[in-house]
Every structure is written in C-alpha cells, then in structure tokens.
C-alpha cells in the first residue's frame, strides 16, 4: 500500500470506528448498569435515522433532525425502561429476551411506516464534497463524523467523570448493591441510562444516515457490529467501547483493504482472537 492510501484508510477506519462508538457506548453503559444486552439497540439506530429523516424533511435542517431524533429516541428509551424492563427488575436474561422481542417488533413497525424502499438522509451542505489528501480524495463529511464522534466521546467522558450523576453511574456499574445501600434510588438511573443509550444510538443513526441510509434489515446489520465492538472492547466501560470501536473500525477497514475476499470474517476473527485470550474483552471487568 502506498502512503497516501494508508493515510486515507486510517481516516476511513477512524471515522467508521467513531460511528460505531456512538452505538457501542450506549450498549455498553446499559449493560454495565443494568446487566442487559440490548438487542434492540440496532433498532434505536435505525429508528433514529428514520425519525431524523422525517424531521430533516420537515425543517430542512440537518442538525434539528439530529437533535430531534435523539430526543424522540431518548423518550422511547424511557418509556421502554419504565413500562417494560422495570417490571422484570433483576431478571437480566428475561430482559435480554425482551429486547429481542422489541427488535422484532421495531423491525416490522419501521417497515410498516416507512416501507421497504431504502431511504437516504441528506448531508448538511457545508459538509458536501471531498478534499484531497496526498492526492487522494477524502469526503469532508467523514471529517465531520470524526469531529462529532470525538466531541461526544469527550462529553461523555466529562459527564461520567466530573458530574455527580456520572460518578453514581460508574459506581453502579461497579457495585449496584453498594449504590443502593447508600440510599440512592438506582432505578431512577436505569431510565436515564436507557434514554442516554437510545439518544446516542439515534445520533449515530442520523450521522450515519447520509452514508449508510435507512432501510429494512439495517437494524440487525448494525446490531452485530455493535455487539462485536462491546465483545472486543469489554462491556460496561466507556473506555472499552471507545477502543473497541476503533479496533473494529480498523479491522473492518484494513480487512477490506488487505483481504477483500475475506472481509466478511474480519470482525468475527478479531472477536474470536480476543475472546480466546481475554474472555471479558480488552478493557472489560473480570467476570467474578
């Protein structure tokens, strides 16, 4: 590979990885706090993209669509937690099965509302076009993804490290019983974390929309990628989601570049290798 191609592919990997991060962060935090693998997380992403498209079409503004979709999905997350998951409190496996039921439901509802024809989201005009790096073209929009992705990563980090709520969430990830013992109503935080997860997934859906679009079946394509990230990075930590996303982003990108014939396997091989040597992921908590 020439230098220019290596540079471009690296940028490809980073932008793809950061898009995945938006998904994986929520998935990982929900798991960390509640012990639920949310199999409907891909549905949040897809639903976010559709809702974003509707709002963009109505308002003509990409960023209104972005925030609108995120808020709508956050509300959906709260509703789901409040009226369904809370009823199965402490039955983690049943909760996971419940998310599977929802994934099934959303899949068909999406198709019902938006039909089977694939949709695409428009880009904000100032991010149109591409720039030349060492003589190779790279889309400006992907720089936008890198900037937004890094920005959200920093905000999340600040939120978890510097705010009281963040400290409680991190403590809850470490030891739920202890947090409850401190007189904190941990259940309130469950709604919040579900909302945050859905919020981030919807942002991912809208930001990914101009590249990936929204169509039936996207939910599960995305879910598998997000699961791969959290398996590789380790569940329950922001750091794990971040590095896991970048690793999967790079594995996918360079897998496609170097072994195009076996691109289908790159993420699974990465997962298998990590699992064999580190069953709880690169930065995951040891299971006890």
């Amino acid at each position: 590979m020439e230098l220019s191609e290596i540079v471009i592919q690296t940028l490809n990997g980073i932008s793809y990885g950061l898009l995945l991060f938006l998904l994986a962060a929520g998935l990982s935090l929900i798991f960390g706090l509640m012990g639920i693998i949310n199999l409907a997380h891909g549905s949040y992403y897809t639903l976010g993209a559709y809702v974003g498209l509707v709002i963009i079409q109505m308002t003509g503004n990409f960023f209104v669509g972005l925030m609108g979709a995120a808020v709508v999905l956050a509300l959906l997350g709260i509703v789901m937690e409040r009226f369904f998951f809370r009823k199965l409190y402490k039955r983690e496996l049943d909760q996971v099965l419940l998310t599977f039921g929802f994934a099934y439901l959303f899949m068909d509802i999406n198709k019902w509302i938006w039909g089977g024809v694939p949709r695409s989201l428009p880009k904000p005009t100032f991010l149109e076009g591409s720039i030349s790096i060492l003589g190779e073209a790279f889309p400006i929009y992907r720089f936008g993804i890198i900037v937004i992705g890094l920005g959200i990563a920093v905000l999340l980090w600040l939120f978890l490290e510097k705010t009281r709520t963040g400290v409680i969430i991190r403590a809850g990830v470490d030891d739920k019983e202890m947090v409850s013992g401190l007189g904190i109503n941990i259940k309130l935080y469950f709604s919040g974390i579900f909302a945050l997860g859905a919020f981030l997934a919807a942002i991912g859906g809208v930001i990914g929309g101009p590249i990936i679009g929204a169509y039936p079946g996207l939910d599960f394509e995305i879910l598998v990628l997000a699961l791969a990230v959290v398996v590789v990075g380790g569940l329950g930590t922001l750091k794990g989601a971040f590095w896991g996303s970048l690793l999967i982003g790079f594995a996918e990108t360079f897998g496609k570049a170097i072994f195009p014939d076996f691109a289908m396997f790159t993420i699974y091989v990465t997962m298998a290798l990590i699992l064999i040597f580190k069953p709880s992921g690169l930065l995951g908590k040891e299971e006890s």
Partner: protein
Amino acid sequence: MHRMLTKYPIWGGLLLLALFILPLLLSPYGLSLLTQVLIFGLFAMSLDLLMGYTGLVSFNHATYFGVGAYTVAILAGLGLNNFWLSLVLGISIPVLLALLLGLLVLRSSGPYFLMITLAFGQMIFALAWRWRTITGGDDGLAGIPRPDLGLPMSMWKAQNFYYLVLVFFAFACLILWKFIHSRLGKAIVGVRESETRMQALGHNTWGLKYLSYIVAGGFAGLAGVFYVYFNGFISPQELNWTMSGQVILMVIIGGAGTLFGPVVGAGMIIILQNLISSHTERWPISMGIIFILCVMYLRDGVVGSALKLRKKGRGNL
C-alpha cells in the same frame, strides 16, 4: 416443576398413538405441517436442554441444526446417500463442532454467553455463505433425495417419511427424558439453579455445561438431518440468527424447562408462520408482541403455565 416423574406409560402411549393415527386423517398439507412440527419440536427440545435445564441461552443453536443439515446435503452431493452414514455424520459433525465451540463460548456466562454464541453463529453463517464450492453459497444446496433405508417403502411418500421422523422423534424424546432424569441430568439442573453451590458440592460444573452443550448440539444436528431430507434443500438462512431466534421463541412460548413444551411452541409458531402469514403481512408484529407478552407475563410458557395452574388447582402448594 421438576419433581420426580417416573412412570407415565398410558398417556404417553396415547399421545404417541394419536401422532401415529393423525396422518390418516390429515390432508397432505396438514401432514407436511405436522412433519415440520416434529422436526422443529425436536430442534426446540434440544435447545430446551440448554435454555430450560442448564440455564444457558444460546443464540447460535441454529448452527448445529444447519451443520447437521449441510452434512447430509454435502454427502448427497458427493453421491453418498446411505441413510445411516448420513445420520451418523449428521449428528457427529455438529457434535464435533460443539466440542470445539463449547470450549470457546463456555468461558462466559449469562448475557456474555448469549452474545458470544451470537457472534460465533454469525461466523459459521458467513462461512456457509462464503464457501461457495462446498455449500453452494447463498443459493444453497438443492435436490437432496429422501433417504433410502433399504425398506420396501419409499420415503418420497409423505406418510412414510412422517413415520420415519416420528420414530426418531419418539426415540429422541425418550433419550432426552431419560437424560434429564438421570443423575447427570439432575446435576445439570443443579447448575442452572446454582452454579456456585454445585461447585462447592464437588461437581465439575464446567464439565456439566459442556456435556449439555454437546448433547444439545447433537440433537439439533439430528433435527437438521431430517429437516434437509424433508425439504430437499438447505441454504445459509438456516444458520442465521433469525433461525436461532425463532427456536428460542418456540422454547419460550412452549415453556422452558418442560422438555415437551417447546414441541407445542414449535407447533404454534409453525401454524402462525404458515397460516396467519397467509392472511396478513403484519405477522412479524404479532410475533414480536407474542414474544414480549410471553417474556413478561407467561415466562413459564403455555405448557409451563398450564402445569402450574393445574398444580394450584390441586391445592398442592
């Protein structure tokens, strides 16, 4: 629910007799549905061993089902149509795969286990899709003949094939039933109830889970063998997570940990899929709702809940 149950010859026999007589009454289409119910019932029972009895929710059970089916299909493609050879390999290759994958996936438990099995399942799915020379890629393998048992009856005849499936189904029920009520089976249930206690009591719980995983894989392979004989074709779709999800649904609707409940679950899903979907294209929504309701309010499934009600009615609490 898991009390000692020992002798039940009369009612079990009657049920079997009903299954034996039914083909004479059913339309050809009904018979093909019933055959399918038996095959998927067997598949779901094997998953129940993992889900209901061992407490492991595996999201790649379709892998073993599909690998069993592919084994038979590939053998047929090589011109090897001997039923017994196909049967033995169609069970033992999934078992070998379970021996291997079990080492990897059983390093984790709970939701991790679910996720990791999902990942490996998709990897095998990708392999079947990609390895076109062997598996036929996404087109799948078609034209697999019905087995020739060297008997004076043709398995192309729907009734004969049904009886063949029924014999193996009944046999598998018996073995699974015996297994679950054996000392090992009880120990496996112990793992579901409390793995730490089992370890403290001197049981090799990892070994028990591994055993259960392998046995379940073998029976799923058996179901796959009959599946491919029944349909005459196999495609990667049968290895996909959707298939694994569907069989989980069968177990949950029927009732995890009831062994025969999943057969009822399989019957309900197949009827839903084939009859309801002929009338409305919105049936995935109904499936989703049924699934959610089952998880929330009918966690013991149709059969499990019925058994509980029955017990309450007897005042035996």
